[in-house]
């Protein structure tokens, strides 16, 4: 039986792309977009870049205008959390008590910032995932120089450290990895980033976070796992994220071990699809499940999931198609822009071609099990960077890809 409604849960990059693709794809029934943040869909990457630095104000972050959203003719429920999904009956429960019968659900609830127990409400301790987080941190960093410890040297911690340093604060970047973003980008690119942070005066330390020191409800320092302490009046926790799947846990039919597990069509169960940071789906080209926390994937996967759902519901006469993207991400630190195609995570091999250290021109290849799966570049002309995509568009033998990489950047 059909009820004539599709619900999309999570009103951010993936959720927005899903509702748009559903309408473009011919869904004329009811469409409900549920989001627990009070804001209309906004973009997250600028939060640790242009918004934190003060270059942009909030109004630049909106992904669509109110008119554009109106044109989609949906029932938008902001400030509303989905609390349960019964996958068998496709019934969604919301925290305002409403229960929505649906024909299909797209789960796009993303991830949340990890924190440590008891720290969330402490003065001076911040996370950076939402607009409210970013505005809070920005206000805190808008006055006299602070003594900031950024805990976690992944991409988020690195970007925030760079901006805070450029704003004139005293910044210490602490991470378990000896090199910034090292676990993702490998030693070669990691060393280049370390030199860049060093040059700009960011102090870098290796170590895990144990907790924070406080006095009168304010943070006064950071305790490291090796017993050392660092003085700080501001702490940014950039220690990773957790998929927002708490609300799905009650349904045993759904595997929520690390995000919502889906098949190659982005389906977690009949009529239930997932997209974006929360989705762990089977990528046939890579032969394994991937969960990708990149902006570009949120949009692409949401479009794919929406199309497949419409096929399943008989709205579209197409066939369902496996979702096999070439993932893409970028990161901006100081004047440097890193761009990567393919899969870097889980690599057992990385090779860096340093083209010009002064100009910070670099290219790198990543892979596992003898196959090349990803490339990264910085400081190269856009045409060359786009050309690198072809090198790993489908994972192939390492040596071949390596030769093609060298040819693409003119370093044979």
């Amino acid at each position, binding site marked *: 039986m059909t009820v004539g409604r599709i619900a999309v849960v999570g009103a951010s990059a993936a959720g927005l*792309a899903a509702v*748009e*693709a559903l309408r*473009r794809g011919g869904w004329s029934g009811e469409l409900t977009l549920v989001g627990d943040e009070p804001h209309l869909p906004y*973009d997250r*990457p600028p939060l640790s870049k242009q918004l934190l630095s003060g270059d942009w104000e909030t109004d*630049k972050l909106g*992904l*669509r205008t109110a008119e554009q959203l109106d044109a989609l003719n949906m029932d938008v429920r902001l400030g509303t959390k989905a609390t349960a999904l019964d996958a068998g009956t496709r019934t969604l429960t919301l925290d305002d008590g409403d229960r929505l019968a649906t024909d299909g659900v797209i789960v796009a609830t993303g991830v949340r910032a990890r924190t440590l127990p008891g720290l969330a409400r402490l003065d001076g301790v911040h996370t950076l995932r939402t607009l409210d987080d970013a505005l809070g941190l920005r206000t805190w960093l808008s006055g006299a120089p602070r003594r900031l410890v950024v805990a976690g040297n992944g991409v988020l911690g690195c970007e925030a450290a760079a901006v805070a340093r450029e704003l004139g604060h005293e910044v210490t970047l602490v991470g378990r990895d000896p090199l910034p973003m090292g676990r993702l980008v490998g030693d070669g690119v990691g060393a280049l980033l370390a030199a860049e942070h060093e040059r700009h005066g960011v102090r870098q330390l290796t170590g895990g976070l144990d907790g924070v020191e406080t006095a009168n409800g304010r943070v006064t320092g950071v305790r490291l796992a090796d017993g050392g302490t660092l003085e700080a009046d501001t702490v940014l926790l950039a220690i990773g994220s957790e998929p927002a799947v708490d609300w799905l846990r009650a349904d045993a039919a759904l595997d929520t071990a690390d995000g919502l597990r889906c098949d190659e069509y982005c389906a977690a169960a009949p009529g239930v699809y997932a997209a974006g940071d929360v989705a762990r789906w089977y990528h046939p080209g890579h032969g394994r499940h991937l969960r990708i926390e990149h*902006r*570009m994937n949120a*949009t*692409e996967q949401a*479009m794919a999931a929406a199309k497949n759902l419409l096929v399943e519901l008989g709205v579209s006469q197409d066939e369902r198609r496996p979702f096999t993207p070439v993932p*893409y991400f*970028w990161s*901006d630190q100081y004047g440097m*822009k890193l*761009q990567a195609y393919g899969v870097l995570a889980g690599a057992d091999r990385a090779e860096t071609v340093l083209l010009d250290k002064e100009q910070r021109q670099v290219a790198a290849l990543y892979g596992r099990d003898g196959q090349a799966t990803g490339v990264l570049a910085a400081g190269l*002309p*856009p*045409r060359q*960077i*786009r050309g690198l*995509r072809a090198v790993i568009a489908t994972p192939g033998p390492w040596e071949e890809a390596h030769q093609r990489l060298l040819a693409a950047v003119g370093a044979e």
Partner: protein
Amino acid sequence: MNITLDVDKCCAAGQCVLVAPEVFDQRDEDGIVVLLDAQPPAEQHAAVHEAAAICPAAAIQVDA
């Protein structure tokens, strides 16, 4: 169809050029998007809509 760009928002991802190379290009110095054709012919429309949808910075606006 009429295309407008918010060049300020562009993060130089180049995805638009991959999808619609006859309509978009990137500046050599910094990779920022360049519009080659603001009113492309009908056969480009699908690609342009696709580019606008996947642009990770929401920098591409398409009217009609």
